[in-house]
């Protein structure tokens, strides 16, 4: 049964925290519900409002609602400026007539080495991809290392070699850097920060706030590979098929996509509205952010979202939803409806887009919300998670 109309959620997408617990107008509350409970409004006292504020918990780093809350409540009010406030994966700066994309990312992955990559290649791919999602051609990277006392220099050498190879493959140079060492126990072996600069071609303006009703959502390939590969490696979970991270630099795929778009009569930016790489928080978080920033609803189709069998199997066992699992070599593109088919065609010629699919559409209903048409034909919400996805008990 659909839930009764009476008790509608007025502000479903707002983050509610204890500080918002001001007395509110309760006149709209469902009397029927109260009577059904055989009680009065006063007795609807649930236990223990929790202090979600005051301390950082791991969920603040999950890319979900808690991360967004940190941004909204601490950083944005203090750092606010028009470039930052766009909240895209990269800042686009105009300097001397050239538009530069500028971004930074920190990498704290454990284990340092995993099937399909390592912290070094990931640190290059991650920042290259954040530049590419702005349509930029990546050029230069910085690398900051935080090393824990006692780290084997052989490990550091392997990681650095992997970074060098990933950078060379992506055609970027690591041009500046920094090294710090913290006492044993104060770090987790090795953390890396990379910052990147790239040039945004003329006519390209991609932003999560440019999506319009009718636009199509394209996904470049199967989801969940990176997150599940890391989880399996970290927790010593073994499956028959080896799980591999999809970590890869996406800028050549993006270049091919921009090329298709540039043949549009209306110009590049009219074709591709926005690109996102669904890293932590997965496809769900990326789409929720886009829906929120563009004030559109997004509906995706479950049957069209590719998930590898090994990833699906692992998710089934652990009670995880692949829509929330991290990817490091996939992108979401929101494109105008006229361009969608041609774009998918073009993406499939590229090895990193071979499984590209249109997975959904933006629309005017319930702005800010992502929904999914299930294989059963019913519709459900694809919510942004509060914190990390937790494996279920049974």
């Amino acid at each position: 049964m659909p839930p009764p109309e009476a008790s509608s959620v007025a502000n479903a997408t707002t983050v509610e925290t204890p500080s918002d617990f001001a007395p509110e107008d309760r006149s709209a509350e469902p009397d029927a519900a109260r009577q059904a409970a055989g009680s009065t409004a006063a007795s609807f006292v649930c236990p223990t409002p929790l202090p979600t504020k005051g301390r950082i918990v791991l969920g603040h780093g999950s890319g979900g609602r808690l991360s967004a809350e940190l941004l909204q409540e601490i950083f944005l009010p203090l750092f606010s400026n028009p470039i930052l406030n766009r909240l895209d994966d990269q800042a686009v700066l105009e300097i001397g007539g050239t538009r530069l994309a500028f971004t930074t990312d920190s990498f704290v992955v454990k284990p340092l080495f995993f099937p399909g990559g390592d912290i070094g290649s990931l640190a290059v791919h991650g920042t290259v991809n954040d530049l590419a999602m702005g349509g930029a051609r990546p050029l230069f990277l910085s690398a900051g290392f935080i090393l824990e006392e006692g780290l084997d220099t052989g490990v550091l050498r392997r990681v650095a070699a992997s970074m060098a190879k990933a950078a060379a493959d992506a055609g970027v140079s690591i041009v500046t850097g920094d090294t710090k060492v913290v006492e044993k126990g104060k770090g987790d072996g090795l953390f890396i920060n990379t910052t990147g600069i790239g040039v945004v071609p003329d006519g390209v303006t991609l932003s999560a706030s440019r999506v319009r009703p009718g636009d199509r959502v394209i996904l470049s390939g199967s989801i969940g590979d990176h997150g599940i590969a890391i989880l399996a490696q970290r927790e010593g979970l073994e499956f028959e098929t080896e799980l591999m991270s999809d970590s890869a630099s996406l800028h050549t795929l993006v270049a091919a996509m921009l090329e298709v778009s540039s043949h549009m009569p209306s110009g590049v930016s009219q074709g591709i509205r926005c690109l996102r790489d669904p890293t932590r928080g997965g496809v769900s978080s990326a789409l929720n952010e886009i829906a929120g920033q563009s004030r559109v609803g997004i509906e995706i189709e479950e049957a069209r979202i590719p998930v590898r069998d090994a990833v699906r199997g692992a998710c089934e066992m652990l009670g995880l939803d692949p829509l929330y699992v991290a990817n490091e070599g996939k992108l979401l593109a929101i494109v105008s409806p006229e361009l969608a088919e041609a774009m998918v065609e073009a993406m499939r010629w590229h090895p990193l887009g071979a499984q590209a699919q249109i997975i959904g559409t933006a629309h005017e209903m319930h702005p800010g919300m992502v929904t999914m048409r299930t294989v059963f034909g019913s519709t459900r919400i694809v919510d942004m998670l509060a914190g990390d996805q937790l494996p279920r008990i049974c």
Partner: protein
Amino acid sequence: MKYVDEYRDPQIAQAVAAEIARKVTRPWVLMEVCGGQTHTLMRYGIDELLPKEVELVHGPGCPVCVTPIEMVDRAIRMASMRQVIFVSYGDMLRVPGSHSDLFQAKADGADVRIAYSPMDAVRIARANPDRQVVFFGVGFETTAPANAMAVWQAKRERLSNFSMLVSHVLVPPAMRLILGSPSNRVQGFIAPGHVCTVMGYSEYAGLVKEFHVPMVVGGFEPLDLLEAIFMLVSQLEEGRAEVENQYARSVNYEGNLAAQRLLLEVFEVSGRKWRGIGEIADSGFRLRPEYQAFDAEYVFDLEDVTAEEPAECVSALVLQGLLKPVDCPEFGRRCTPVAPLGAPMVSAEGACAAYYQYRRHARPQTDGLATMSNAPA
């Protein structure tokens, strides 16, 4: 994927839903007992496929939701001790206690670790002989055998630094409570398939006879649930009240006898508090006296950590199927997964979280999306 896709076939689902619609002649209220079943119903929108006569209400079978608040407080107390490594299934970490949760305790410096099996905790104990390792043994009959195995193994190895905070509950006493309540609305049960995989379904026959209420042991995939609903509606329409087994690929009458032997070796039946419901006689497990040395409550002397929750908390009514989550005035307002007021909003299996996660949209502005509700006529 094998053993999954064949139970999620949309065409067959539509066909079964149509059969249910053909069979039904008047309104029936059915309860799925297990939170895993609630999750599937919401995730796939099974309730939207059903004729309007069939109302589903959601039962108490979410281990996270019914673990009493004082157990969470005790867990946090122990986890905060310097010598303790506290090991738990993941979704217990966000369950609110009186003042905090295990994630906050971890942020405050407690050594809290997520495990996928209680045997992981035994391994951690072996590897850290100078620390006390406590495992949070929660859940229904489903998780009990693995937890029993961990304690049994620890005793066999004479591990002196492993103990378990036991908060195990049993399904049949909770069903009895619901059926015996004067306000009960439930006319048929989908019995929990995984609990019955362990325990069999002989113990449900008594309830069926006493209350003349049909029960069907059901699985967790969409087609399992639709078939179980069809079987229940058939019994109700034909005036029968029997125990039937839809989940035959996993469940048999006796259950897993080896698991049951181990359970009885390590645990004994005892009274338990249920969050939101209160004390229910003979409704859970505690460790037998021979295993006292592995009982965290004995090892750490936590008797003084007690907490009462308001008896009128609405989650009790939700857990007994008397209210839908959306009937609570705080649902989606003060109570969200970010700031859960009660446990059913925490776990993916909790009825409130399942509604919040999958269904908020079905209400205000979206006429178009609710059109499936009476679809298969």
